């Protein structure tokens, strides 16, 4: 058997044609990495609910404190830089999917209202929240990148309360949980994960959607409790703004609010 009709394409044109596959793959890969990081991140910050010492331990762990015996802030900065890179690549790729004109936007809106179809509506909100994350996540990432030395029970709480980050975090919590949740759900459908032999794709989808909402609800509750905890600590610690936390095991001289 041989191909008779077309001559072999010029190699430059050939590699050009491969890019849609790579971009689609990268969109999903960065989305997956960010989505999973988002959930892990929520558990890390939520350790504040277990007490200041627990959160302190997690923060030091990321600085390699327990390996090197001293905090290496560069490790944190490197992790933030990695996430920021994923974030920028993901956002750049997502731009391909945005409505490209007001006409397209209008068409989609009208279509969404007529169809009253959950997945069609979810995509719209995914785009809206993704757009909002452009700005909100950038602020957060920049601060983490430039002040990796100020992460801890008091340090973070001061930022949340005295530095007035809580309104941003509150809105960002809803945006990121919604966007990431829908994104991971869509990712599973897009690539046909969990579908088995495909004989019950609709049933699998119904279950996935249930899981998605359940997880979103769980992380929103966890996130709100966590944010409230930092706000409370930050409020109490406001007169001592800037003082570092010293874990109870290390010093009885530890600063208490």
């Amino acid at each position: 058997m041989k191909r008779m009709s077309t001559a072999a394409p010029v190699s430059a044109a050939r590699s050009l044609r491969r890019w849609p596959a790579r971009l689609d793959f990268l969109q999903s890969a960065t989305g997956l990495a960010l989505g999973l990081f988002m959930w892990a991140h929520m558990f890390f910050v939520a350790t504040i609910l277990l007490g200041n010492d627990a959160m302190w331990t997690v923060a030091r762990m990321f600085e390699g404190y327990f390996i090197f015996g001293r905090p290496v802030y560069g490790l944190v900065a490197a992790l933030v830089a990695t996430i920021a890179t994923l974030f920028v690549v993901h956002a750049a790729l997502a731009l391909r999917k945005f409505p490209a004109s007001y006409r397209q936007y209008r068409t989609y809106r009208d279509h969404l209202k007529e169809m009253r179809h959950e997945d069609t509506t979810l995509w719209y909100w995914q785009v809206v929240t993704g757009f909002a994350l452009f700005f909100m996540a950038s602020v957060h990432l920049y601060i983490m990148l430039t002040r990796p030395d100020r992460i801890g029970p008091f340090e973070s709480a001061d930022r949340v309360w005295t530095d007035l980050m809580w309104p941003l975090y509150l809105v960002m919590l809803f945006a990121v949980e919604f966007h990431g949740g829908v994104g991971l759900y869509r990712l599973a459908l897009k690539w046909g994960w969990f579908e088995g032999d495909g004989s019950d794709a609709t049933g699998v989808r119904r279950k996935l959607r249930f899981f998605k909402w359940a997880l979103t609800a769980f992380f929103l509750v966890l996130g709100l409790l966590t944010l409230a905890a930092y706000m409370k600590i930050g409020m109490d610690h406001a007169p001592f703004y800037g003082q570092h936390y010293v874990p109870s095991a290390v010093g009885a001289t530890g600063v208490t609010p």
Partner: protein
Amino acid sequence: MNSVTDSAPPRAANPPADAPQRMLHFHVLRHDPQDPVSIPHFDVFELEEAPGMTLFIALNVIREQLDPSLAFDFVCRAGICGSCGMVVNGRPGLACRTLTQDLPAEISLAPLPAFELIADLSVNTGKWMRGMSERLETWVHSLGQEVDLARLEARMDPELADRIYELDRCIECGCCVAACGTARMREDFMGAVGLNKIARFALDPRDHRNDEDFYELVGNDDGVFGCMTLLGCHDVCPKQLPLQTQIAFLRRKMVKAGL
């Protein structure tokens, strides 16, 4: 209208034959693009519901008794020809397969978007489908091999034949295209109908095109990578084709071919 009840399918949900029937209001989008003075508007037709009434029956009653100028398409009235697709209360579907008893009393009917409007509820899906078929070359390519009509065809595994047949049940009604947010926004998107066809020929051993060849056809943003997995297509397809599974299958295959 009592006399028609006998032929109605015995459904538990059906009201008893002597129960008073609902008055239905059909809000039908009217427009004739050939007529320079025509402006799109809704006409409202009132009709008494009959047991087992489909939109096909209702529209014919309207045309016979209320407005002979109403344009709409039907051929088979059995969900086979794919010509009666329209937007029913916002969702694309086949008029001949839609029972009025499953709808509220206020029913809005509009032509399928994304296709060229002929008049009122009639659209030119054929033209769109032909364009798609030519673009995607949706026929068996026996590259370089002469087809010998005198010889028996090579045997095919019955299970494979079933899988191909399953996808071949597409009637090209266009509902999946009208239900797709991507297709609505981006006119060149080939829609679930096109992707399903490629998935079908990719299965067929008589088609000698390989993944590289299919990649040339659908490995781009008008093809499988343009699909945003909104799954409107899957949810409205009147033939219940496994579009969700097929598009995911094609996406995995095409990413492998393209990476």
